[in-house]
């Protein structure tokens, strides 16, 4: 009887000096795996122009019908993306999304990427619909925000020149 009690107390005592498996979330966040599929991000080129061309193929690929895209035309005065077309409306309903990543697969410009963020909570169904402003990644480095005023003839190609995937 005492022997069993002693063994139990020993286990307790030992675990007090072990490294804990839990973390102090939300103060501490565990890094996600390389292929983690979290909240979507709409990517930009280095100059700040949006990669998304509003083709709606992500919406077509989406098995949960969570994406709504509407396109409009770029001009040199008001340019969002290279080429003729950009997404004037881009919404994802995060309540519908099943984070399958098909949108990422379908994207011809690698504009939509499932990111690291998994902290999705809402108090209202409307909040679950993320508009383009929330999905677009912030401008990095030298880039400017969109819409940009660009030189005529600089960004006339609709898709960045097609290349084989590098990695």
């Amino acid at each position, binding site marked *: 009887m005492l022997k069993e009690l002693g063994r139990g107390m020993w286990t307790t005592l030992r675990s007090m000096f072990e490294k804990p498996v839990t973390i102090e979330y939300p103060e501490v966040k565990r890094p996600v795996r390389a292929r983690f599929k979290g909240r979507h991000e709409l990517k930009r080129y280095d100059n700040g122009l949006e990669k998304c*061309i*509003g*083709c*709606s*193929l992500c*919406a*077509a690929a989406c098995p949960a019908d969570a994406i*709504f895209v*509407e*396109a*409009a*035309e770029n001009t040199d005065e008001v340019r969002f993306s290279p*080429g*003729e*077309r950009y997404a*004037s*409306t881009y*919404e994802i309903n995060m309540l519908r999304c099943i984070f399958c990543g098909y949108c990422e697969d379908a994207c*011809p*410009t690698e504009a939509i990427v499932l990111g690291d963020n998994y902290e999705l909570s809402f108090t209202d169904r409307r909040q679950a619909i993320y508009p383009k402003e929330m999905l677009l990644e912030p401008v990095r480095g030298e880039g400017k925000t969109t819409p940009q005023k660009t030189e005529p003839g600089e960004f*006339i*190609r*609709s*898709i960045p*020149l*097609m*290349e084989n995937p590098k990695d």
Partner: protein
Amino acid sequence: MTKLVSLTIDGKQVTVPEGTLFVDAAKRVGIDIPVFCYHPKMEPVGMCRMCLVDVGRPMIDRATGQPVMDENGAPKIQFGAKLDTACTTPVSEGMVVIGASDKVKAARKDIVEFILTSHPLDCPVCDKGGECPLQNLTMAYGPGETRFLYDDKLHLAKQVPLGELIYLDRERCIQCGRCVRFQDEIVDDPVIGFFNRGRSLEIVTHSDPGFDSVFSGNTTDICPVGALTTADFRFGARPWELKSTSSICSQCPVGCNITFNVRREAASGGKTVIKRVMPRQNETVNEIWICDKGRFGYHYTESDDRLTTPLIRKNGELTPASWDEALGLVASRFSAAGEGLLTLGSGRLSNEDLFNLRQLTEGVKGKAALYTHMAGGDLTAQVGVAPGTDFGEMGKGTAILVAASDLYEEAPIWFLRIKQAAERGATLIVANARPTKLEAYASHVIRYRYGAEAETIAAMTVDRGPTTVAGHPSSVADASKAFAEAENAVILFGSDGLGLEGSQALSAACANLLVATRHVGRANNGLVGVWSRANDQGAWDMGLRPLTVDRRPELQSAKAIYVVAADPFGDDPGLLATFNLQPATFLVVQDLFLTETARRADVVLPAQAFTEREGAYTSGERRVQRFYPAAPARPDTWPDFAITAQIAQKMGSILEGRVPAAVFTQIAATVAAYAGLSYRKLAETNDQWPSVGSGVRRKGLYFSGTAYENKQGVGIHLPLSPTPLPPVNMQSFHLQGEGLLAVPVTCLYDRGQTVYPSALLHQRIGEVWVALHPADAERLGVVANSRVSLTLGGAEFDATARLDESVPQGVALIPRSMGIPINGPEAVEIRAGERVVL
């Protein structure tokens, strides 16, 4: 009877008429031979080489002329050394065609690869992506990989506006020439063409304004790639996201079958809106074409200026009110008016609306009138074209008389079909006071002076024939002989230069001519009215009749006026002066917009547009066709028939006001010609050729373009009224007065309420104009394109002067619905304005 020929295609036996092309013969038995440049409505050219097949012909012994037999007793087949194009090779007896061998597959694979060498592959941003023949055929027959280098691709201009309606993407063009051939062969508006050769070949427009054709939108349907797209739908949505609803075009009496593509739109606050209008196949009405007015003119239905709440005049101001209050007021005043109720409906309404209008009006013994400037709808019900009539069948042995109508402007699809009938050998007789576009295809041209329309047609009956036209050797006598001797004969009468009075005389003369030459009561024979609105014929059938020519006595004697889908005071301010003399008259306007008439109304009731509700129109050929609700209705609006029924209910009589099908059942029970019809019958379809396939993945689209399959009804042609035709008294009608005569003409794009809200069309609509002969202009001191002021019916107007040799001397053409009110021919005074050449 053409000879039938049997052949084998991929092991299937086919029997088709001699002269059929392989590609069509194969399609008949469900074998798809891929094509890019071939189109079943046009002559083959064999430019794209996609349709290559292996063709074997039976070996013939030269000595005996008999087929050589093999050991099994079957004829020996000799295959050619090279492949043949299926689109240019006609069938012959005993042929064997192989379209599925490795040799053929390899050839097609190479063709696709070759076509794609300089295609930008920007399908994700292309409006055609998803319903693109090039995409589909690449997936089905292409190599999957290319051996060409992307760096060496030809880069060309991406967004070239051919006009303000159509954009060209030079990179995507595969140079099949379908668009150029459509404009040359089918429309004969050769405003676009090829420029340069080989790799530098490009499509250019040589008209000003660019792509100046009212059929230009059709080229985007038949373009097998995304090279031609419309400005209206540019980046509007992806084709697979669109829902489609069948409808009928409400712009003219042809009754083209159309499909509305709708989708929710963020820009409109998440509402479902119409994204584009596409043709819906009906080979007896519009084939697979529609005109640009039908394609781009729908925007008025989604205008922000639409009425959304009932208005009642309180203290001199129109103020929003509840339906209950408005309807209660209207009902009490209508009941009080009794016989003094005048209802004015227009051909913009559906049959159900017009039927209910008449029921309500006759319930209190009022008068239900049709707002129109044309007469003769009662005659077309008796001597109209009989069921089975099809302009597409007319050819040799048929005479078509087009009287006082500029069909290109009034009913473009009829222009197209009659032009084609003339090219197939029909005798086309064009009678008009001025040259029209259709004359180029006419066998006989009759030129009269304005005012002598009926006389001229009457002269054809008695064969007096005095008039000859310079440059045209034929006379009225020749024309009337050709007309009388033709096996079948059709007359289309319009309103070029005519008011109601002239139209009455002309329609009677036309009816008399048909009766005298015994061209009545049979298919492909009879009278067709080129009405100004889609359902004028239906309005006549529902028993509405035009007001008298003067209109004033009726307006003055009415105690209450119920104007539905018409704007008499906007069209003719002169009437307003008369009306203003009657302050006690109670005016109710039921419309989509706050028109000039509505501004004067005591009560305004907001109605629904035809895109938001169900109904049936009767076309000029008297084909009853159904349309379906495409877009959600504006809140707090009702269909016209429902509003009328609710007024009737408050007046104590019961009309059907909920289900349009039930109203139609009542029509079928009441109106003799509509007996036996029902919504279900109107929704019946039949097999049509060429088959366009259905759904987004429709197989037939590469074959004949992106027109939609007809799945919701081809409509039913009404039988003729069984009552024998009473002899029609033709009132003679002469113009009085001297000096310059103003005559009204119809132009396709006008400033009417159902056209002008489409901003895209504004450039085509242009300024209000008046057309003069240069000699008259010189006499008046008017310079081309200068501003002139004109006095018409006591009022002053400004317009831009167009000088045109084709306008008869002493006449000024004034377009209808462009801002100058004109009901019929009348005297006009024109003075040159300041001499600023615009």
